[in-house]
């Protein structure tokens, strides 16, 4: 079908604005401002928050912006981001998984015990950890979907029960050292400088090509599309972030000139791969569409023939499996698995990260990228306060406050959305 036919048809149908809408950059900026005012803020609060935090901590402590600390911050954020990404599909349904943190802890324990006590290969241990996570998720999902117990209660029970399992596995107060080369390397080894650049450029090129092709196809088919300037701006932002991060991480950040440390820690490409994968799954597949539909209106989804129970079980399986991955990354970073792995404030950090990033606690709204931005905010707070050598009570107070703030922003923007009739 040609452009002109479509345009004529659209005009007849009375939604001509479909095609002319946001043709110019100015109009789309105006549309964006309107969306923000209407409560559709997306990642804006978290990006602004991140900028503010960087400025504050940068002035408060001159080590904060050092290359070494930036690398450390990004590595620290890895397990939080992965756990937050695990929670996004569950939050999209309007459910919660309070046990995700300890599910990751138990899974990492299984890995640790297999590695150390049974001398298994690393891939066997990792697979066992992921299976453990998936099994936990399956049970939670079945209890929530089939028995209809609120997810809050089921996962609270698992939060307590799984800590017992961890204690049983590695004994009271014990810990398992994880120093296997591959596992430990996730957070502690770096990519070759050259490979880092190659990967960064390849991702930028692929992203740009995909965006531009998509845009051209939409234009040629006369479908609704963003103005080309917005597409280019998106590409520029992604390129700038990736090049900036790669540049910083490829500098020598060692304090000892005899032992240079440079290159991108492996956890970062891992997070990027997961981000791409879950963005694809949520945005481009039937499963993802159905997750949003169930989160938006589960009755409508059921009437449309979607198997709501299956979707619900699937998100809990994904959540616990991804939590297992997060537990492995945390074990890699900490060099051990202990009885407190995944307990304490780990889960609240991750929920906070997802909500700060813009995922709604009410369901139906959120993206995998929310977890990345929100996770960076949380990691920055933890890292910055740590550098300022504040008492740990300050850390708890600030993080709790930020979580409350993010949830308030979510609730208020939701009210504004329903008042202005925006999604």
């Amino acid at each position, binding site marked *: 079908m040609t452009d002109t036919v479509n345009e004529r048809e659209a005009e007849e*149908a009375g939604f001509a604005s479909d095609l002319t809408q946001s043709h110019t950059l100015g109009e789309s900026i105006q549309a964006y401002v309107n969306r923000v005012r209407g409560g559709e803020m997306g990642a804006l609060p978290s990006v602004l928050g991140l900028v503010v935090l960087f400025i504050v901590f940068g002035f408060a402590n001159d080590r904060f912006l050092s290359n070494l600390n930036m690398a450390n911050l990004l590595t620290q954020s890895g397990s939080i981001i992965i756990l937050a990404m695990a929670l996004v599909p569950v939050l999209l349904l309007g459910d919660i998984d309070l046990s995700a943190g300890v599910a990751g802890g138990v899974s990492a324990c299984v890995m640790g015990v297999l590695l150390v006590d049974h001398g298994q290969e690393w891939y066997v241990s990792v697979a066992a950890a992921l299976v453990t996570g998936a099994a936990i998720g399956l049970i939670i999902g079945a209890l929530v979907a089939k028995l209809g117990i609120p997810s809050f209660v089921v996962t609270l029970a698992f939060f307590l029960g799984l800590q017992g399992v961890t204690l049983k596995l590695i004994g009271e107060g014990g810990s398992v050292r994880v120093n296997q080369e591959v596992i430990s390397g996730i957070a502690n080894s770096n990519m070759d400088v050259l490979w880092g650049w190659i990967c960064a450029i390849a991702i930028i090129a692929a992203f740009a090509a995909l965006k531009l092709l998509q845009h051209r196809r939409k234009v040629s*088919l006369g*479908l609704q599309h963003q103005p080309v300037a917005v597409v280019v701006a998106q590409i520029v932002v992604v390129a700038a972030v990736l090049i900036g991060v790669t540049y910083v991480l490829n500098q020598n950040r060692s304090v000892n000139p005899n032992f240079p440390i440079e290159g991108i820690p492996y956890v970062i490409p891992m997070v990027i791969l997961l981000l791409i994968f879950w963005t694809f799954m949520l945005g481009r*597949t*039937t499963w993802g*569409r159905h997750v949003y539909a169930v*989160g938006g209106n589960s*009755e409508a989804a059921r*009437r449309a023939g979607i198997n709501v129970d299956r979707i619900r079980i699937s998100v809990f399986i994904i959540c616990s499996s991804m939590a297992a991955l997060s537990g492995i990354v945390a074990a890699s970073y900490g060099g051990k698995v202990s009885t407190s792995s995944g307990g304490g404030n780990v889960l609240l950090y991750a929920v906070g990260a997802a909500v700060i990033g813009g995922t709604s606690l009410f369901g139906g709204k959120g993206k995998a990228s929310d977890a990345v931005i929100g996770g960076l905010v949380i990691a920055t707070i933890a890292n910055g306060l740590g550098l300022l050598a504040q008492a740990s009570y300050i850390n708890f107070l600030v993080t709790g406050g930020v979580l409350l703030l993010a949830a308030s922003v979510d609730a208020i923007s939701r009210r504004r959305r329903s008042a202005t009739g925006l*999604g």
Partner: protein
Amino acid sequence: MSETAPLLELRGINKSFGVVHVLHDVDLKIYAGQVTALVGDNGAGKSTLVKALAGIYPADSGEYIFDGKPVTVHGPKDASALGIEVVYQDLALCENLDIVENMFLGREKKNGVILDETTMESKAREALTSLSVRTVKSVRQSVASLSGGQRQTVAIAKSVLWNSRVVLLDEPTAALGVAQTRQVLDLVRRLADSGVGVLLISHNLTDVFEVADRITALYLGRVAADVATKDVTSRQVVELITTGHSSDLDGAQSPSTTA
């Protein structure tokens, strides 16, 4: 009595919820190209009948005949496979999704495993165009930003998109203003004129008399009458709804004998 066979026919449908017997031997006929109105007071069993048609609550007993052939409908998927589409009173749209996403919900077009957004958007636009829908600004608008009438339009357009043969409309004008009611009734008429069998469930007799070709009245779970709209007056229909019979309407009392 009628020249053509009904497109969809229910015979002797019974449905109980526990001890409550909601539908007693209900017969219902829906003809292609006609609007059949289903009227009845609250609790007469209209919604239950619609849900039986849509496969949401399968009937306890009775026959379900589609296009002259007996069929079994166990779930919403069976009904939509036959080409039966239900537009619910509460619309059953996901507010967080846009118009295209809602119209294709549960039946997404795919390229391999990837959603085929371009095809879906073009087809959704075609469906809206074919109904001469002029009120929707953009097919990528989220449903939350639409008015009640526009949502109704989207829900009805969904049935056009799927080439439905029977469309059940549950109180489509209940929550609408005057102008929007006008638009939706026009849409209902256009839908029937394109050959679709339409079942209109309504409380509003003005609407019923305006668009319906036939009227089936339910009273306490039984069919009180199945008549052509032109043969009855509004007063008689009110009598049927409230008392289950109308003294001066004996000829049309037992429709099942003519089937």
